[in-house]
């Protein structure tokens, strides 16, 4: 046998059903390092945040550099009063002032998604500062690291929070892809997940509530209405998405196509899936080109939308592309294509340039003052989730309950499923999001169609889940 031969030889379609099943999609999307992969080195954070059980760390831990003094309305006290006014909180009720309260935050502080862990932490830190300034409790945030979706790290983090009797936490990656969920329930730790939400089997679970719209699904009604109004000649739709496993792919296909019922669009047969973190889309684009629809729905995440759009320019596609995410990763990967031709996307995106409510404007202003740049949607989510926790604490305090009890806190949440949001609203009314009491997902969440071009995101249409309150701008 020759040397190289030796070498060779040696080697029923209800909304609830839709939410439950497609929730996997959002969770899986957020699970991917690509979705959360972004810049930011994190060795220091890792050291600081994997604290020993019971070790409370606040302020600068996750956000890297803590928020600096407010410049908005003349100091923290001014911000506090402004926050109370924006939220419409009666200052005479018990706000929790003088009380110290522990809240966990299990985020991606190291690994591929560490950039987003950092920005989430910034949102939390800023809210903690504002709440204290407004006369609320001194919230001690116990930061823990799930290492960008490592289930073992998540379980360890939840164990530490549980044994320290931390009654509530903010989580991400769908409560670390549901690995933390059993312990969340065992320790009765009220959890809000504003990163991955609570899709799939995470729905209807005690103590676990998702504060994000379901990625790739909840926006479809509004998006299709936008297309009908602005592209009346568009008749066909194709789909490009991530390969998330055969079962989920089949469900995704069924539900996305079912969403076309009653719209002006029909499916042209194109349903192509690419592996997450694909860089070379030329082969896929060749198929799209040969079956070019009027509208192409592109449900890929992280850098992938940037690569896709860039290569679609070389392919000379005429179809109108709609994405479901916009991140700095995707922008960089587009190598200028997003700036040149624009990137239109539909999701629950927080557009810092166009905050509409007093609360939203204040948040943007204070975030810029504290950190020197505009908040992204993860910072916004975790800012408002921290405010929601404070709302729950106030409810429990004013009923004479125990704010260090997870069940009491969850009862407080169930008193009213509506919470203030930096999304939506106007000068007269704060925006809100609302939980579905059955699924624990969101029933209402301001979202819209947006376009990024020439360095700015512009809102094209706003609506709520299921195309409610639709408005073309």
């Amino acid at each position, binding site marked *: 046998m*020759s*040397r*190289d*031969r030796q*070498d*060779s*030889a040696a*080697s029923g379609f209800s909304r609830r059903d839709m939410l439950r099943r497609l929730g996997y999609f959002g969770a899986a999307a957020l699970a991917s*390092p690509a979705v959360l*992969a*972004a*810049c*930011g*080195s*994190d*060795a220091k954070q890792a050291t600081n945040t994997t604290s020993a059980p019971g070790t409370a760390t606040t302020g600068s831990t996750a956000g890297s550099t803590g928020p600096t003094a407010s410049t908005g309305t003349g100091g923290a006290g001014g911000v506090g009063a402004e926050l109370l006014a924006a939220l419409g909180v009666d200052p005479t009720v018990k706000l929790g002032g003088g009380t110290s309260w522990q809240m966990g935050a299990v985020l991606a502080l190291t*690994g*591929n*998604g*560490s*950039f987003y862990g950092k920005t989430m932490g910034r949102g939390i830190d800023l809210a903690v500062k504002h709440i204290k300034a407004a006369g609320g409790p001194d919230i001690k945030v116990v930061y823990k690291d799930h290492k960008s979706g490592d289930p073992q790290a998540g379980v360890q983090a939840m164990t530490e929070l549980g044994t320290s009797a931390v009654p509530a936490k903010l989580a991400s990656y769908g409560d670390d892809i549901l690995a933390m969920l059993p312990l969340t329930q065992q320790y009765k730790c009220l959890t809000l997940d504003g990163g991955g939400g609570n899709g799939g089997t995470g729905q209807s679970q005690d103590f676990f509530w998702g504060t994000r719209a379901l990625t790739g699904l909840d926006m479809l009604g509004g998006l299709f209405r936008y297309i009908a109004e602005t592209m009346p000649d568009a008749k066909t739709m194709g789909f490009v998405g991530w*390969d998330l496993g055969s079962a989920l792919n089949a469900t995704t296909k069924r539900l996305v196509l079912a969403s076309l019922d009653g719209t002006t669009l029909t499916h042209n*047969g*194109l*349903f*192509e*899936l*690419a*592996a997450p973190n694909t*860089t*070379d889309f*030329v*082969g*896929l684009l*060749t*198929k799209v*080109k*040969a*079956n070019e629809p009027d509208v192409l729905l592109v449900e890929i995440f992280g*850098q992938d939308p940037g*690569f896709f759009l860039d290569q679609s*320019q*070389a*392919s*000379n596609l005429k179809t109108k592309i709609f994405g479901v995410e916009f991140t700095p*990763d995707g922008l*960089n*990967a587009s*190598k*200028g294509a997003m700036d040149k031709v624009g990137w239109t996307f539909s999701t629950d995106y927080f557009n810092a340039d166009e905050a509409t409510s007093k609360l939203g404007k204040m948040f943007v202003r204070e975030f810029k003052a504290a950190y020197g740049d505009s908040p992204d949607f993860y910072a916004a989510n975790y800012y408002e989730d921290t405010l929601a926790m404070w709302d729950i604490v106030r409810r429990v305090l004013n009923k004479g309950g125990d704010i260090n009890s997870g069940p009491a806190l969850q009862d407080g949440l169930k008193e009213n499923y509506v919470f203030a949001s930096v999304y939506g609203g106007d000068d007269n009314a704060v925006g809100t999001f609302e939980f579905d009491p059955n699924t624990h997902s969101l029933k209402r969440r301001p979202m819209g169609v947006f376009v990024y071009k020439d360095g700015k995101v512009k809102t094209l249409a706003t609506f709520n889940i299921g195309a409610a309150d639709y408005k073309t701008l």
Partner: protein
Amino acid sequence: MPLFAVTITWDSVSQLLVTGVINGTAYGLLGVGFALILGVSGRFHFAYSFTYALAGYGAFWAYARVGLPFGLAAVFGVAVCVVAGVTIERVGYRTLAHQAGGSALLAIFVASLGIGIAGENLLRLTFSSANQQLDGPSGFRTVLHWGPTSFRWVDVWQVLSAVVLVIALTALLRYTVLGRSIKATRGNPELARIIGINPDTIYLICFAVGSLLAGVAAFWFGLKYSVAADMGFKPVIYAFVVGFLAGTARAPARIFIVGVLLSVVEQLSSIFLEIRWTQLVVFVILVIYLGSLSINWSRVFAMIRNPAALWGRARVDDDEEEEEELWKSGTSTPVSL
């Protein structure tokens, strides 16, 4: 896995062919480098993925951080890759090979895995986990049209550089003393040593050349897409496949062509398969090839030419079984007795 779920036109087949050739030059280049290293030194250099990524990061660092001119940055990136490859061989593999003796192949394979993983994480620690954008002069991104197909200038440069490098390596192996020394060492290192060739030096040269090829491929990849710590994993797996399919002792041109053909097959398979399955085609080809090695083809062909021989053999087998049954029943004794 639907077949022909969507329309395929001649235009799209043309585009797939062109894309296959473009991507195939990268597969081929890496395959040539991998085959040179494995074929001559016997080192299963899995850390090739790390050195591949180093070329991208080197160019990115020199261009985006230091501000070197683009051409110099490219040379710097490739040079970093070469230095890393040679260092790994000199400091790591050679030492291990001398200490491990007969089990050197396994020891080096495990070590190379470790170096690859550690190196990837080192890159993450140094440059963060984020992908880095290597944005060269905009001219590289200009779209060119050729009939119904389109590609970019960067693709043209990639193809040209790959072809030039493979031709140069072929010439080096065929027409120079060094090339003959490399082939002699590949054939029999101990005999080469007897005639005055130092195999250790030849190994270093092979690592340098192999890393150079990987560095060039990595540079174009980084320019087309982005630079990431794990950017070398998939290309190196492809390099292994190309190397095994073509044969690690084969001429560079042959290995290169196998790489191009493999990529073309991969691209064309998307006519029949969904895009997500096309990568599997590469590995299916490898498995079929490896499986075919265990088949005695001369016997198969002989049987095809003379089926009666097969029948005759079956008759002999039947007779032996009958004899054995008689022996067991006590009515006969084995012939061998």
